[in-house]
């Protein structure tokens, strides 16, 4: 098991120093190795588990139940302008 720690960190948008990456690598490998013991179990003919609870999804009727709560919700945002969220420029 060889984990590209830098790549995993980049995908998760976590900034790591080289020292942290070196330290985390073996730790992550131990965790994945632990989970990998499951691969030893013979699952021939066993249906994959989609969800831990054996239940079907409850559905919702298509009826509008929410009203405008913009002011309250936007108190959690660092910056807004004219009702829009302001974020650092996204380059396409």
């Amino acid at each position: 098991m060889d984990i590209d720690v830098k790549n995993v960190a980049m995908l998760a948008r976590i900034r790591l120093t080289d020292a942290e990456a070196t330290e985390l690598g073996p730790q992550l490998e131990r965790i994945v190795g632990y989970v990998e013991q499951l691969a030893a179990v013979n699952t021939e003919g066993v249906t994959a588990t989609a969800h831990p609870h054996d239940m079907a999804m409850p559905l919702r009727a298509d009826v509008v139940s929410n009203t405008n709560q913009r002011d309250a919700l936007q108190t959690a945002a660092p910056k807004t302008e004219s009702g829009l969220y302001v974020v650092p420029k996204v380059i396409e």
Partner: protein
Amino acid sequence: MSWEVVIGLEVHVQVNTKTKAFCGCSTAFGAEPNTQTCPVCLGMPGQLPVLNAEAVQKTILTGLAINATINLESRFDRKNYFYPDLPKGYQISQFAVPLVEKGYLDIPVGDGEKRIGITRIHMEEDAGKSMHEGLEGVSHIDLNRSGVPLMEIVSEPDMRSADEAIAYLKQLHQLIRFLDVSGGDMEKGQFRCDANVSVRRPGEPFGTRAELKNLNSFRFIKQAIEYEANRQIELIEDGGEVVQETRLFDSAKGESRSMRSKEEAHDYRYFPEPDLPPLRVSAEEVAAIRAGMPELPGQLRQRFEQEYGLSAYDADVLTQTRELAAWYEQLVAAHPKDPKRCANWMANELLGRLNDAGRDIADSPVNAQALAGLLDRIDDGTISGKIAKDVLDAMMESGDSADAVIEAKGLKQVSDTGAIDALIREVMETNPQQVEQYRNGRDKLFGFFVGQVMKATRGQANPAVVNQRLKILLQG
């Protein structure tokens, strides 16, 4: 040696539900920014999604219409990526087991048809909208669209030209409008297309493909595919190699550019959505949805040809939308005598005028009953077909009935033989030479006399009566 273009399409269709996929927020278009959001579609911690039943039913209906398999148990997964218009940091989608699989659509190609395979239709949620224009160093985000239900319809790489791709998209677009599962408005982003394009020598394995993103009009899609195919051919012929990448088409420049570098190649790290148990639908529910299936465009076209004796062309024009087809059937119901005349007048005269005025059949100032009223007046000889066109112009203008226009403008056709005979005699008296020549065998002059009589009545004389009386009186 020639090149073959290979195209597969991914179409994102906004499902026209009243509420979002996983919460009770409204999906109405054009609301003030961020006024249709809640903790669920804003991705607040601890919120649980609950799936919209209507979105499920509309996806199943679409699946049945493309002759696909409906998976009675399907699942949801998280597709992970970071973008400010995706507040959760993942999109809820269906990756491993989609609701709909293995269907097809037959598209018109030349004189025949070609079957395009549809790999799958899965349910997912839309992202919000980012705005960059006119802003310095920042972007603005509106999350009203965040969580709006989408169907992603993925085709097989079965298309071999931009024209085939367009034919497929038009067919699909017409279908979703007929099924009323989406507004299909491309300008509002309700029908968006990504194209996977590669080239190969015929018979060889598929080449490396490039993905063209967010093509939002039929014209741009054609341009973008053709541009991309040529780019790849030139690249290979110059000894280069196509790399798998996402490219963005710039419609203003008519060219595409690479959008994501290789380092950031897609790695969505899909995993099962733990907040949603499997979606189960029963065979009975599917059967009930199938029973409610409306007549599809192909069936309707065929019926119009058989039942009303329409040409393939007219049948095609009148079945472009459900609204047009319903309008035509109302017209025939109101003027059952001549369905072909109904089709001619609707397709050529009415739709032509509406088109010129930039109007839709839904807001036509002349309704089906009114047009039938006009056709009745042609049938009973009150006006000629030629005058009827002027009457229709006036009806379009004023919204009045045919009878009101004919009355007000005094356009009633003259069919009275006494009055017509008098006119014919007048014409004969003023043109004695022509009468002489006609009687000496110059048959061609008959048309001249018809013209003169019609002119004298400003086109209001019944042409059939004029013809009949002229023949008799000219013989002398």
